[in-house]
């Protein structure tokens, strides 16, 4: 899988490249618009990550040109602006996804993976992490064969963590997926729910599955990063 990153902030560009390389992607980097367009025009990429504010050719213009050539390549937009109408405009111009800075890298990686496996993806109906089973169809949770009763929010939280075992999610990501944008900034609600979830999922068992990474967030199961 080959990914192009067009981002003028050199450090950020390298950081994204490193995170993606860790996921075993091949990564090309471009730090201005013209270089970005030249690369996008010359090679077949599986995914393009595009910053909107670029020196030289702007991100929106690159997006327009790529779509003019009718390329089906998925494009993930990075931007420091999050005005809704701009978001809509970019989706109309053919962007596939949108991330607003500052984002968590876990989020970026998840989005990239999601974009790459779009199409005929069969999602497993039962998620397994260690001896934990999350059945997405019946919304039932079992651990070591024992049924665990969860409230709907607790279930949503657990399912979100279990869908990407080993990965650590920031509180903001969790809020955006499990709650909604109105709760942004209300990160302590995540802590409270995690505590409740722990008391049901982890406390009765010797091995603890829910992991806290201070300053980063929460994950389920052993780390897969690094």
């Amino acid at each position, binding site marked *: 899988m080959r990914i192009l990153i067009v981002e003028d902030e050199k450090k*950020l560009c390298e950081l994204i490249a490193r995170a993606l390389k860790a996921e075993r992607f091949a990564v090309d980097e471009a730090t201005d618009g013209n270089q970005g367009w030249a690369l996008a025009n010359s090679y077949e990429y599986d995914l393009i990550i595009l910053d909107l504010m670029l020196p030289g050719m702007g991100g929106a213009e690159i997006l327009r040109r790529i779509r003019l050539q009718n390329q089906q390549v998925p494009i993930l937009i990075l931007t420091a602006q999050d005005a809704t109408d701009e978001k809509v405009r970019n989706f109309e111009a053919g962007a596939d996804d949108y991330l607003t*800075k500052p984002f968590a*890298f876990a989020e970026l990686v998840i989005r990239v993976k999601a974009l790459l496996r779009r199409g005929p993806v069969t999602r497993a109906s039962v998620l397994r992490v260690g001896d934990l089973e999350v059945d997405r169809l019946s919304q039932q949770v079992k651990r070591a064969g024992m049924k665990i009763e969860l409230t709907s929010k607790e279930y949503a939280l657990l399912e979100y963590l279990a869908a990407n075992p080993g990965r650590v999610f920031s509180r903001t990501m969790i809020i955006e997926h499990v709650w909604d944008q109105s709760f942004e900034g209300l*990160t302590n609600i995540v802590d409270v729910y995690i*505590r409740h979830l722990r008391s049901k999922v982890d406390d009765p068992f010797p091995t603890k599955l829910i992991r806290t990474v201070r*300053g*980063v967030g929460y994950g389920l199961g052993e780390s897969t990063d690094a």
Partner: protein
Amino acid sequence: MNTRSLSFRLVTWYAGVLTLVFVVLGSLTLVFLRHYLLSSVLDTQARRARQIADTLIASVDRTGEEVMTRQVEELYSPVVNDRFIRVTRAGGGVLYVSGPPHDGTFVPSDVPTLGAAAFDRQGVFERTVSLPSGSLLISAVASGRFIVEVGVSTARTEETLRQVLLLLAVGLPIGVLIAVSGGFVLVRRALEPVSRIAHKAEDISQHNLSERLPVVHSGDELERLSISLNHMIARLEDAVQSSKRFVADASHELRTPLTVLRGELESLAQDAQLKVHTRESIGSLLEEVDRLAEIVESLLALSKLDAGEASSERVRFDLGELVTLTAEQMSLLAEDKSIRVECDAAPDVIVEGDRSRMKQVVVNLLDNAIKYTPNGGNVLLKISCDGDNAILEVADNGIGIPTEALPHMFERFFRVDDSRSRNQGGAGLGLSIVKSICVAQGAEVDVTSRPGGGSCFRVRQPLARGV
């Protein structure tokens, strides 16, 4: 009535000056009128006396004194004309004296006779005789052997002057009153644009700086004042605009470095080989990055609300339902502190606006209430209708807010007490966001509180029409 108001002071001055002018004019009129009346009486009398002297007395030798006195009676009929006429011989002794006048203003016999000294004088001379019944003004003409005196009571002149005085005494206050009320109306009308401008100026705050004061096209100082004020508001608007733009640009520019910072730290934090205290330090750094990011987000959200980008979505929704739902979603937060959240929602309180923004208002207010209520406290959410408005109240029985802090509750970065809220997290922007959202949605928010007795935040939003 405001005694310091411009109109009151103007009218008072005006009335004072006017009264003074009227009083001076009136006194002068009286003095001159008196002088004129008396001198004209004296003139007439002197003329008459001379006539008598010239025509009758000259011929007395021929006709005899009898005839002359009869002629005086016939020609001048002093009794009927209320006049006093007396002819005195040089050697003493009265030749003729008129009878008592019809109006009885004097008694002729009371008038003292002329002394010998009078005969040394020549021509016309005047004197005033005070009698018990009033003053008598007498003009006398000496012509050789006789002195002819013609007089009249001053009563009539005095009466005229009294009438004029009365007229002035009544007319002057009425005149002043009319002039003052006219002046008051004029001043009020002239200053009415000032109160209009002041009224409008009161309404202009940082949220509607694009509005302008009404310009009075009167071509006078007020027009210039209103135009100058409008220029000033325009400059203010520019300043506020550029400060808002600055906040937006700054938050914007901060995002990229924050992303890098967070990314680097995140990848460091997941390195399994780190020593425990290094991992802790990185975690603490990440927490600070999160806080920074949160402040930047809030500032950007605020600057967007200021720029009016907020109320793009307008839908009708049930406020009670929204609040009940949000309270349910946050119930665990309250449970965690054993706080009882009660929801008292009247049915069918339909409002129109941006639902997700309104939800953010509820979330922020409820979160605050839970944060500042001690364990085991109560929070009451109440949704009701008041006329054309929907009312949302979030009341707690927590620590309350000191009275002096109340007016600043919705200011950016305001904290009631530095140590208190910093421990609770947050940057002091939650309530400003609530306020900005409310303003953008045409709602109002205020707060009442007693220290130690809890606080109550109240949002008042117009009901959707046609319900």
